[in-house]
């Protein structure tokens, strides 16, 4: 068995339901839909046997939750965009991988658990990604949550645990991150034809990030996560985590062929469909001094140090 897990593709896709439910209402939403469709075709042409999703619209509190229901069935409706329609789903999950991922998390010090309950509310982002990228359930999937309190160390370890489980089971994997770039939406209802990125600043940052993605510089984006959070992320959670997880899961380097298939506004937020294909050789001119992390030791209990 190889020492490296076989990751055939990495995808970064937006969580909003518009490309699924209303691609005809805005040309940009339609282009995002086309990009999803292109990715779906490429996944079908690959011989991947697992789609692993990290969704920023599935928050967790008690550690990290991993979807393990072999056949979740429900009809999902988005909290904000319920008027666009319902999203009935029936997915095929890889319960064996989910359990293996949980074990790998625990072996690296993370608190994790699988969830397998009828009627469990699979989040908008995961539903959109699975329905568009894997509509016929051609390959089994797995979804991991985004813990609201976690930060860099925990996310990187969570990504490494995903690799451990891939390696152990010999999986060929499509890694999918579901996240916006800039995530500030308009706070009022808009005519679909009026959609645009919320501000010029958000747009400039998005384009800079896309330039990095296009050059395959995933690890560099990971290292820039704190800047990205400060500049273009509404502070719903403590950090911009998806790049940390994605980079750690995909090997912590810049050796990819990057392709930005679409970049459009989704009610003001920045939505992009991006593909990263592992390649030889990479680029990068940045140096970083934050430690790499192999094992999560938990909080440092500063309040217990007798400082008060």
């Amino acid at each position: 068995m190889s020492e490296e897990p076989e990751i055939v593709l990495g995808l970064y896709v937006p969580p909003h339901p518009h490309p699924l439910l209303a691609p005809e209402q805005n040309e940009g939403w339609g282009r995002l839909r086309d990009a999803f469709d292109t990715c779906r075709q490429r996944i079908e042409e690959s011989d991947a046997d697992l789609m692993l999703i990290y969704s920023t619209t599935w928050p967790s509190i008690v550690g990290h939750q991993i979807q393990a229901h072999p056949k979740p069935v429900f009809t999902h409706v988005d909290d904000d965009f319920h008027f666009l329609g319902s999203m009935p789903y029936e997915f095929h999950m890889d319960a064996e991988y989910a359990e293996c991922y949980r074990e790998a998390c625990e072996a690296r010090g993370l608190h994790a658990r699988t969830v397998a309950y009828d009627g469990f509310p699979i989040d908008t982002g995961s539903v959109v990604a699975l329905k568009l990228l894997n509509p016929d359930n051609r390959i089994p999937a797995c979804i991991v949550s985004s813990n609201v309190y976690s930060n860099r160390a925990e996310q990187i370890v969570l990504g490494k645990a995903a690799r451990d489980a891939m390696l152990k089971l010999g999986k060929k994997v499509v890694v999918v991150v579901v996240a916006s770039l800039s995530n500030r939406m308009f706070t009022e209802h808009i005519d679909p034809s009026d959609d645009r990125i919320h501000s010029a600043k958000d747009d400039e940052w998005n384009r800079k990030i896309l330039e990095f993605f296009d050059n395959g510089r995933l690890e560099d984006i990971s290292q820039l996560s704190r800047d990205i959070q400060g500049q273009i992320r509404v502070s719903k959670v403590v950090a911009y985590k998806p790049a940390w997880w994605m980079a750690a899961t995909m090997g912590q380097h810049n050796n990819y062929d990057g392709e930005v298939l679409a970049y459009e506004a989704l009610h003001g937020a920045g939505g992009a469909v991006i593909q990263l294909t592992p390649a030889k050789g990479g680029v990068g001119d940045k140096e970083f001094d934050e430690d790499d992390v192999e094992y999560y030791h938990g909080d440092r209990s500063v309040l217990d140090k007798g400082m008060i």
Partner: protein
Amino acid sequence: MAKGEIVLGCLAPHPPHVVYAENPEQNEPFSEGGWEALRWGYHSLARKLKGIDYDCIVVLTPHWQTYVGTHFLGLERFQNISVDPIFPNLFRFNHDITVDVEMAEAMHDAAAEAGIITKMMRNPDFRVDYGTIVSCHMLNSSWNKPIVTISSNRSTSYYSNEVMNAQAAALGEAVMKAIEASGKKVVLVASHSLSHRHFVTEAPLPEDMSREHIYNHSQYVWDMKLVQMMREGKMREVIDILPEMIEQTMAEAEGGGLSWMMAAMGYPDYPAEIYGYQSVIGTGNAIAAWDPNEATRQLVL
């Protein structure tokens, strides 16, 4: 038609643990109990509510999070299973909810008239959030009254705690106008805890009360400060310092519930009835009520 009125305002936290601990027939998991200080407090408040004449319960919940305006449930009935995305091991609740759509539409229209971005939710597949269900079940387990659910606009995330306070106050004033015009007697519910930092691990037996305590002492101090001010009828001051408390304790009031309810009730200067306080997985939870009727107002705890 007589002028409508608010007959009670309730701060009603919604940890699914309390429903889990009650073992109602609608909830699938089984528990050995737990969190009695909260549950017994809820029982006491529910008994009081049974003695009050009212038409509907209006709840603002932080677990229906909307970024594009404030939304209102707009269909008469919701039957479904609600599975808590955070604690699915504790809460898988089969519900049958009746909505006072007329009241919801009146509140929606009043809010829109006040310049607030609004939306009626008319999708029959929509799943009612567990915050609504937990608070309403603990206050009225017979579910014999219609409800109105109002979403939590995330203005704290998009702007600041101060902007949240101002927008929630505007919503509260608009809702009060709708209530007065309706001629109905209404119970308001702010569905949330006080301090809101969770432990990120869970005991093997979640109801093992030997493991339950507040996340840290500063959270407790803030919670007690607020409870004391509630006892003293200083609700204007509570709302004024709420942005600071939210900043310091990650308080769930960031969803706007308490600010909305107090504005609708005109910032009561009479003592709140305190029914209980207890931590749930580290968060601070108080059950309190504001009774505008001096004759029925009680010193509970």
